[in-house]
C-alpha cells in the first residue's frame, strides 16, 4: 500500500511537472502555429464515419484482433472496439483501420489519475 501511495505521489509530481511543462509548450506551439501532434507527441486521429480511421504519430500496435485493437501512443493507449476490424495499411507514420467501429477509448495515465483520485 505504502509503495503504491509513493508511486501515486511520484506520478502526481510528474503530472504537475508535465502540466507546467506542457502548458508552456502548448502555448508556444499555438503561438507559432506548429502542428500540435508532432511537437506535443500526441496522436492525430482522422475518422470517416465509423468505418475508416487513420491514426498518425502512433508508437506501436499492442493488440490486434477482429473485435479489438489497442494502439500505444505518446500520452497512452488508444482502444478501438468493433466488428470485423482490419488493418488496411501500416507504416511507421500511420495506421489505417477499417471495419465497423463501435467505440474509441483513450486510456491515458492522466485519465486514470482523475478516476482514482
Amino acid at each position, binding site marked *: 500500500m505504502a509503495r503504491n501511495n509513493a508511486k501515486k505521489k511520484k506520478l502526481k509530481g510528474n503530472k504537475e511537472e508535465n502540466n507546467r511543462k506542457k502548458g508552456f509548450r502548448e502555448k508556444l506551439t499555438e503561438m507559432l502555429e506548429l502542428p500540435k501532434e508532432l511537437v506535443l507527441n500526441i496522436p492525430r486521429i482522422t475518422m470517416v464515419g465509423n468505418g475508416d480511421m487513420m491514426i498518425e504519430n502512433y508508437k*506501436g*500496435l499492442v493488440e*490486434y484482433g477482429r473485435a479489438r485493437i489497442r494502439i500505444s501512443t505518446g500520452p497512452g493507449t488508444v482502444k478501438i472496439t468493433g466488428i470485423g476490424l*482490419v*488493418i*488496411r*495499411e*501500416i*507504416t511507421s507514420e500511420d*495506421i489505417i483501420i477499417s471495419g465497423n467501429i463501435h467505440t474509441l477509448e483513450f486510456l491515458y495515465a492522466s485519465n486514470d489519475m482523475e478516476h482514482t483520485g
Partner: protein
Amino acid sequence: MKVLLLLRLWNYLRGYVIIIVDGFFTEKFINICAHRNILLWDVVVQGDRTMTMRMSIKGFRLIRPIARKAKCRVRLIKKTGIPFILNRYRRRKAFFVGALLFVALIYVLSSFIWNVEISGNKRLETARIEEALANNGIKSGILKYGIDTDSAVSNMMLDMEDISWISINIRGTKAKVQIRERIPVPEIVPRDEPCDIVASKDGMIKKVVAKEGIEAVGEGDTVKKGQVLIAGTIPLKDDDKRFRFVHAMGKVTARTWYEEESPVILTETERLKTGKEINAHSLVLFSWKLDLPHRKNNFSNYSAAENRRKLSIGEDLVFPLEWVTVSYKEEKLAEAVINAEDAKNAAAEAAYQKALQQVPENAKVVNTNIYYVKDEQRGLLARVTLECLEDIGVSRKIGGN
C-alpha cells in the same frame, strides 16, 4: 478492402506477396515491420494466433530476422504482380525480343503520316489539294515530327488562290486538313463610275425600283440577257443629244424559268443475284500489293464491290496496312415492267431535282409545272418547269460589256 484502384494497380506493377504469420506475438511482428519501413497492408486476423498480410517483394526479403525476433512463423501463400510473371518468362528471350519489337514497331509506324483527310472542299478537286499539300511536305509516308504545320498553312494559302482558310492538324497518323473555299467576288463597279444595270439572264420583269438612273423596262416586259434594265445615261432636259451619266442603282425583280426533262422508263432490267460469289482478297502494305489466290471469275454478268479495311487503333492512329476484299457476285438479268404511274412519278421527280439544282440560291420558286410530252426518239418525257422570282440586275460600266 476497397483500396483505391490506382494503388492496387501500382501494387500489382511492383509485385507483392501474401504471407501468413503464425505466433503469439504477431503484433510485435507488425510493429517491427512498421518501424523498419516495410509497408504492410490488408492485415487480416485469420485465427487465434494467425494473420495474413500483404507486403512488397523488397520487404519480404528483410523479413527473416524480424520473424525470428518476434518468434513467429512466416509462410508465403501467394506471389502476385508483374515481376513474378516476368520472372516466369525470364528464359524466353525471343518472347521479350518480340514484345520489344512490337512496341518499337508501333512507335515507328505511328510516327509517320499515313492518311491525309481533306474536308470542306466543294468546288476544288481533292486531288489538286492533295498535290499542293504534298508540295508543302504533307503527304502520307512522311515523318510527322518534321512537319511545320504553320508554314505549310501559309504556303498553302499562297499556292492556292481559291482557299480562304485552311487548317492542318496532325492527329495520330492522320493529317486532318480543313478548307474553306473562297467565294468568288462579283465584279463591282466603283461607286463614282457611271454604270447601267443590265439583266444577268432572260426573264419577265415583275418589278423595277430605280434609286438612281432611268427605268428602261416596265412590268411585264420580257428581257434578254445583257439588256439594260436601269439606264445610267440620262438625257438632258432640253437637249436630246447630250447626256448626263450616273451610277445606276436599284432592284429589278423578274420571273425566270428553269426547265428540265427526264425520260419515263417503263421497263427496267433487274439484276438478280444468283447467290454465287467469289471473294478476292489482297493485302496492301504501303503501296505494295499482295494478291491472295482465289478462284477464277468466269461469271458472264456480275457486280463487283470493293471493301477496304485499314488497320487502325482508334480513329486517328491509322497504319499503312490494308486488307482489300473484292467480292464478285453473279447476277441474272431479268426484264421487268414498271407500273406506268410509278414510272411517270419517278421521271418527274428526277426532272424536278435536276431543275432545282439550276435555281440560284437567292431565287424563290413560286410555281412548279409538270407535264409529259411524247418525243419521237426518246419516247415519253417528263418535263418540269420551275417559275422563280429573283433579282436579275447586275451593274455594268457604260460602254463596257
